[in-house]
């Protein structure tokens, strides 16, 4: 298979159980190289679990993760070099300053000092964090923390970026900047996977999308194929189900007494 046809990420029969609960029940997913891939699903669908298993943060019970054709769990050091990761709901080494944190991520990925310094400065400028480069990350706001974590994920110029909820708590201006950065990264041949709750954003930003619910892939493909003429949000609700009728909670009216 020629290099460009090898998928950036391929999940084969991925399973993961937590105690009694099966979080991911046999997920197969192919993320083509050079795609901007959206992962959507209701709360508790298994998005974060799948992404953790795709990035070496959680061991699958069964199944294989291939990154550009290489088995992540068989060859972790080689594969992790190609990955940039932004997990959701975890801490950072937040007693470091923003600049130190980005430097740390770069050095851990084996960059040399000059490259790290140069890229850290670029990233701080691009993400509008220059003024807070010397502040401890623990004192950052939620949005700034997301941005510095994103910088850490990108500093080693990975071939595949896996971002779990990258826009959560990020202000609109920064979010637009980040979208531009990601779009130009994809245009230059990189691959991005983002998970999100915001259908509108995924529809506008991504070229591929997978809908996950209850640990299964319900639909996957190009955004146009998946939504089939509807808006992605309507299609999502149709696939996942569970919309209320709008009745009930009649008492929740400020005029009632």
């Amino acid at each position, binding site marked *: 298979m020629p290099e460009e046809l090898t998928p950036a990420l391929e999940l084969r029969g991925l399973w993961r159980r937590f105690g009694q609960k099966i979080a991911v029940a046999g997920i197969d997913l192919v993320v083509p190289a050079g795609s901007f891939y959206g992962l959507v699903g209701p709360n508790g669908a298994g998005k974060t679990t799948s992404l953790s298993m795709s990035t070496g*943060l959680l061991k699958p019970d069964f199944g294989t993760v291939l990154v550009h054709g290489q088995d992540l769990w068989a060859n972790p*050091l080689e594969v992790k070099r190609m990955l940039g990761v932004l997990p959701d709901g975890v801490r950072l080494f937040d007693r470091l300053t923003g600049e130190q944190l980005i430097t740390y991520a770069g*050095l851990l990925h084996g960059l040399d000092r000059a490259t790290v310094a140069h890229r850290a400065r670029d990233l701080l400028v691009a993400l509008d964090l220059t003024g807070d480069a010397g502040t401890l990350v623990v004192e950052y706001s939620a949005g700034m923390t997301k941005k510095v974590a994103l910088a850490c994920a990108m500093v080693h110029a990975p071939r595949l970026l896996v971002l779990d909820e990258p826009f959560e708590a990020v202000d609109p201006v920064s979010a637009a900047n980040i979208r531009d950065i990601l779009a130009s990264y994809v245009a230059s041949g990189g691959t991005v996977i983002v998970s999100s709750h915001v259908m509108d954003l995924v529809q506008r930003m991504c070229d591929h999308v997978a809908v996950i619910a209850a640990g299964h892939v319900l639909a996957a493909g190009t955004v146009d194929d998946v939504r089939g003429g509807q808006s992605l949000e309507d299609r999502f609700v149709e696939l996942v189900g569970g919309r209320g009728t709008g009745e009930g909670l009649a008492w929740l009216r400020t005029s009632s007494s």
Partner: protein
Amino acid sequence: MVAHLVQLKLALVRNGLRRSPWQVVGLAFAGLYGLFAIVLVVGSLAAVSVQTPDIRGLVTVLLGSVIVLGWWVVPLVSFGVDATVDPARFVTFTIPRRSMLLGLAIGAVLGIPGVVTVVSALAIGGVWWRTPTALLVAPACALLGVATCIVGSRATTSASSHLMSKRRVRELMAAVTLVPLVLIGPLIGRTSASSAHLTREALEQVAAVLGWTPLGAVWAVPWEVAAGDVAGAAGRLGVAVGTLVALTVVWDRALAHALVNPLHEVASTRARGLGWFGRLPATPLGAATARSLTYWVRDPRYALAIAIVPLLPVLLWILNPGGSSLLFLGPSAAFFFGWGVSADVAYDGSAFWTHLAAPITGLTDRLGRVIGAAALAVPVVAVYSVGSALLTGRPDAIPALLGVSYGVLWTAFSGASIVSALVVYPVQQPGENPFQTRQGASMVAVVSQLVGWSAVLALSLPVAGLALYAITEHSSALGWLAFVVGPLLGGLLLFLGVCIGGRLIERNGTDLLQRIQSFA
């Protein structure tokens, strides 16, 4: 509302038990321990109650004061208060503060320390069974005493928690409060050894004074009643009630303040440049070391882990002033420093993912942590070893001391590297209120520490024995042998330790991360 809060506490404990078998084991052990304490207290108080001459008043006031002091002070320095039911969670509900205080206080009794305290307090009251008048007031005083304990613990912790959220204050306090606590044991040991004639009169005087203080007043009331001194009893009762009222007001105020001004780390630090990241080699190992070093300086939890080290000289001096026990300074500092990295992964918390996602070996992770700690430990251990030898007039012991100290240091690093790759337990997250304990930590933590300590001590024994022999026999040849063998043997163990620990991290790192995330 009070009943609701109490039910909530019980439900939280029940669910916690359901979550992990370790919690059940922990509770069972704690329960056994509590039962043992109860049997001990009740048994000895029963013996005291029929003792002649009459020492009932003396014993009850002293014991009661110790219990109260324990409740007030211990949460400040070590365990924190049980935060199962955290008042901050109720901010959005309209609960009258009076109900909240009462509910939280009753909830606090429902735990092993609470139950042991209640039973002990009632036993202290029961001591007066031969004196009907005193027995009349004793149960009420016992309950008042329990209230003083519990409200006092909440008052001290909540009143100081805001002060404590300032990092520098916390570090200072940790050191300052540890001083008396660490010194109590040796001081008692010395006084009882040197003056075995610690007379009953002297103790009675102490008890009489304590009887007028907030600590002992409540326990002294039945004593005064038994002695027929109504005015004295009323006076003590006044002190006791006043204490409880004052504590309630303090707690109430602190809680009212805390609910609308949640704790947050006070913004303070701005750093220029890259610090250690700019100075150490630009490799993954250099970066891991720089991270570790930066945390040793910036994160007070690390400082707490080795807070005992600056106190060691004082401690050893008190144990044996001017004696040769000061020579233990180097090895014991080495031990504490080396063991200081044993909770490293737990301290990382979920930030540990950074190491898992990066293309680094487990060995790099382990070595970075060890080198970071060693950069601080090596000079301190050298100064302590040489200094203690010079102070005790034994410069000839320097080689042996250095040998055993570095042997212990490397061995402790080795053990800690393995333990911290195997076991994580809930610890304070950076910036969290230092006075809140995490539930269910204790058992895994205690067992892993005990096993680790024993292993390190056992592995250090050969060199320690050699050095001890060399020093006591003034054998400089053997001393130099220890100087060579200690670091050599320790270094070998350290090599094995970081290799094994690194393997474990590579194999189990994701499980560690998952366990850390399950604590949150």
